[in-house]
């Protein structure tokens, strides 16, 4: 068993980006280089912290910071606000910190290349969003989770509306309306659990397991919690904010779709499914089926819609919607293999999708092209960029040995393990659809000849380098998911904690 001890490190992981935000806003646009350096330095510091935490976690030493512990003298449990570096949280936390460094460097190149306005505000909000995402990752209990989850909505709002155009404002409003509503649902659920006297500390296997709630209560709670996190996870029919939010600058899209927001949503789904309800409760309720059917539908519809969109970023957005549902479905299938796959998919999709968005951004900076149909021949002009795109696309489709192959393999295997073969078919079909919406781009880029004779070179080094790194990461983690950061070990630890051998496998297994 792992032992837990008090430490300041989890708090430090949250505070480092806050500090970066403060420094960036104080430095202001007068010294842009210094301002942008803060983010990179802080990102490296944060990676260091999270890696230390990761090593510790892998050694079964869980670091925990209690920010607030309060007995209210009323017969409900203490109100505790605490951060804890548990295996599941660390997966998300490390992912966030690593991708922040890359996205930060990329953002510098992008923002300068596009001559975007109000860069200070952008970098400040960016860092704050990372802090909130780190908080979401490390939250020890539901209340802490809700707290940071709400903050994440707030801090990303200025990012979505960054362009300040009419459509950006509309998208911002939509985004805020959706996410705040989700937050409200979560607050309601958290308060209710608190009143019911349930200790809402996340526990592998579910803290509601054995709490003795009646099934109506469970269903309502499930509706509130799954609905609340489902907004950010863009499960249909709660997804419509996501394509609209594509008006934001590309680093934001990368952050939203690959790192912070939607991953917080699916990570929340993992928390809700595994750490709040747990396998046996979900199985008894039958709620897994609802979740599974909804996510499977989202998966297929999302992929299909992606086919129809010519705008590259929109196509990627629908692809995101579909891939998020991979993870939700993995959670819903409640089996150890499916869960391992889902967790790996969070990481894998993170690095893969961020590559794709980076590429889209780089193309836009260089050529101002946004549509797939305009990309003929671009591969020859920007070989590194489009090469990375091709690698990421292969990963996306699930070709071995890329990371997403590994995760999809586990997901599919998990579906078989629990005896739900129809969902395996869903996964396979969706993989083929992925190929259908991604490969044409590669073919256009490399096989066709550019219609006009303008020559474009590669983008700024600050953009190309992160693209290359993430693409390579997608490959490396696919070949060796345990290297260098032990994601596979973490995922299987979580799965083992959540499904101890004594628990019967769920999902209608005989």
């Amino acid at each position, binding site marked *: 068993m792992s032992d837990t001890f008090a430490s300041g490190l989890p708090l430090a992981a949250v505070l480092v980006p806050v500090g970066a935000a403060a420094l960036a806003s104080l430095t202001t646009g007068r010294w842009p280089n210094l301002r942008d350096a803060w983010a990179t330095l802080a990102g490296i510091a944060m990676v260091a912290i999270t890696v230390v935490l990761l090593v510790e976690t892998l050694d079964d030493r869980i670091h925990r910071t209690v920010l*607030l512990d*309060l007995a209210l003298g*009323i017969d409900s449990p203490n109100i505790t606000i605490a951060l804890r570096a548990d295996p599941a949280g660390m997966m998300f936390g490390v992912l966030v910190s690593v991708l922040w460094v890359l996205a930060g460097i990329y953002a510098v190149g992008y923002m300068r290349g596009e001559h975007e306005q109000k860069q200070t505000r952008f970098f400040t909000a960016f860092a704050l969003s990372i802090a909130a995402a780190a908080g979401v990752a490390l939250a020890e209990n539901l209340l802490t989770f809700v707290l940071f989850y709400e*903050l994440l909505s707030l801090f990303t709002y200025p990012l979505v509306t960054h362009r300040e155009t009419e459509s950006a404002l509309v998208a*911002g409003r939509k985004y805020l309306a959706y996410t705040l509503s989700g937050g409200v649902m979560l607050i309601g659920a958290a308060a209710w659990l608190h*009143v019911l006297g349930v200790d809402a500390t996340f526990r592998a296997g579910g803290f509601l397991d054995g709490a003795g709630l009646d099934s109506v209560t469970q269903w309502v709670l499930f509706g509130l919690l799954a609905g609340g996190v489902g907004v950010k996870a863009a499960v249909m029919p709660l997804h419509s904010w996501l394509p609209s939010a594509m008006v934001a600058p590309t680093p934001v899209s990368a952050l939203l779709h690959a790192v912070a927001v939607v991953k917080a949503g699916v990570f929340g789904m993992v928390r809700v499914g595994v750490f709040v309800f747990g396998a046996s409760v979900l199985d008894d309720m039958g709620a897994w089926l609802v979740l599974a059917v909804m996510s499977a539908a989202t998966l297929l519809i999302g992929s299909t819609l992606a086919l129809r969109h010519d705008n590259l970023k929109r196509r990627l957005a629908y692809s995101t919607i579909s891939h998020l549902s991979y993870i939700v479905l993995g959670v819903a299938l409640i089996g150890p293999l499916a869960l391992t796959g889902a967790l790996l998919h969070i990481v894998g999709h993170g690095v893969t999708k961020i590559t794709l968005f980076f590429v889209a951004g780089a193309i836009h900076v260089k050529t101002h092209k946004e549509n797939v149909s305009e990309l003929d021949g671009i591969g020859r002009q920007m070989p590194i960029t489009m090469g990375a795109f091709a690698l990421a696309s292969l990963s996306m489709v699930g070709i071995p040995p890329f990371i997403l192959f590994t995760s999809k393999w586990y997901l599919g295997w998990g579906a078989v393990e629990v005896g739900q073969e129809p969902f395996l078919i869903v996964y396979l079909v969706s993989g083929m659809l992925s190929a259908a919406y991604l490969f044409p781009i590669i073919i256009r880029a490399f096989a066709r000849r550019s219609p006009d004779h303008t020559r474009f070179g590669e983008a700024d080094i600050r953009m190309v380098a992160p693209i290359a790194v993430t693409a390579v990461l997608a490959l490396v983690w696919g070949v060796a998911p345990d290297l260098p950061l032990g994601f596979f070990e973490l995922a299987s630890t979580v799965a083992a904690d959540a499904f101890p051998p004594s628990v019967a496998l769920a999902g209608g297994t005989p």
Partner: protein
Amino acid sequence: MDPQPQLPVFIVGAPLLFAVVVPVLGRVWRHSAFLIALATVAVAAVASALSLELVLRQGAFSYYLGGWAPPVGIEYVIDEVSALVSLVITSVSFLVLISTRRWAEREAGDRPGIFYGLVLLLLAGLTGIVVTGGLFNLFVFLEIASLAAYALVFIGGRKAMLAGFRYLIIGSIGGAFYLLGVGFVYFATGTLNMIEARELLEVTENARAAQVGAVFIFAGLGLKMALVPMHLWLPDAYEHAPSSVNSLIAPVMTKVAAYAMLRMFLSVFPAGFLSGSVPVADALLILGLIGIVFGSIAAAGQTDIRRMLAYSSISQLAFIAVGIGLGTPLALAAALLHIVNHAAMKATLFLAASSIRLRVGLQRTHNLTGLGPRMPLTMGAFAIGSVAMVGIPPTAGFFSKWYMVQAGLDEGQWIVVAVVLLSSLLTAVYLFKVLEQAYLRPAKPEPSAHHDAEQGGSADAAARPSEQAMRPVVERAREAPFDVWLPLVLLAAATVGLGIANVVIMEHVLLPGVS
């Protein structure tokens, strides 16, 4: 009798004493009025803080005025709740007061002594209400505060006159209803002391009379706190009141009425007394729920910032009423917490609105385009206040909502939970509308907007809106002067600080206070 700590006297006595000094001294040396008023409020705030510290150290205590123990005499009841609320009122007023000098010179003409005398009387009345333990004494101080408020609202210009008169009539009805209710309680029990009244009400034979008394007391205080449907005076009064007064009255005045109502629940009417044949508690709950929704929706429809904030106040006060109506210790504590939080949040928002008015002269939301970067501190404070109002976690507003939701769940009042949660979304609708205008809209030229140029516009003639060049007003707008932005920043910091300290306040002050 042991000598009692003399601290509480200063909370009320200092403003009273200097309210007498200021008018005459202000004639001799004009600038003394502001300084004396500021110092006096500081004294009251310090006295409140020391009282609170004493309460936390030794428990609640009474102060017998004139040395007569109640029920013969009148007492101050200094417990956790009253000490905290008086501390909040005095310190928020202190901060707001710093900024009033700029307006007072214009709005109060060459007689700042009179103006600051009234301000001090207003504060004395409010703190008097908070600390008193007597039913009738509360009425007297309520009238002091109200009279001062009527006059201060009235001097805001043409439209404020009618609003002020309406305020006076409705406020007087409220006061008289309260007095009538006290009469009923007095004839049913024979006492005017709150705590003794509670004991006697539990055994009274004239329960029906006392209940009707409760109805009148709550109707009277409901009028003063602008509980729907008794809110009609508030939007006009808050919209048209002069800037200096607005940010002073809005955060504290109605809150004190709400506090008085809560006090009635805590120390006068026994539990269960208000849910019998005359279901006052339920009525309060229902009116509160209606008020939350109504206030938010009405606020969303406003184009004038201050009117929007006024409707928002209606909604927030209804929130407090819901807490009182639920009546459990947790709900009451949540309501009290919201009184504290809301005082800070609304002071921030109204002061920011006043600051905008000072520099831009415009109050319409659609005219604030691009103001964010030009007045970073003002709009930053406004943003923090807004976020707190919406109830985003670490800020103050989140926790009162959290506790209220819990209290509603405890009681199985699902509708309360739903409305409280919904209200934060509705709040987001109207406040983010302003933020969006200020921060995210690129400045674009607009044609004439002469209807926006209200009286009492900007202080410096250069920034005064005129018909041909309205747009440059925003573009030329500078940050508010030091004595306006400093309190604003402090208040915004307090909003965040209260959010972090909320739970501590709840644990050490409010929950012991209500049980």
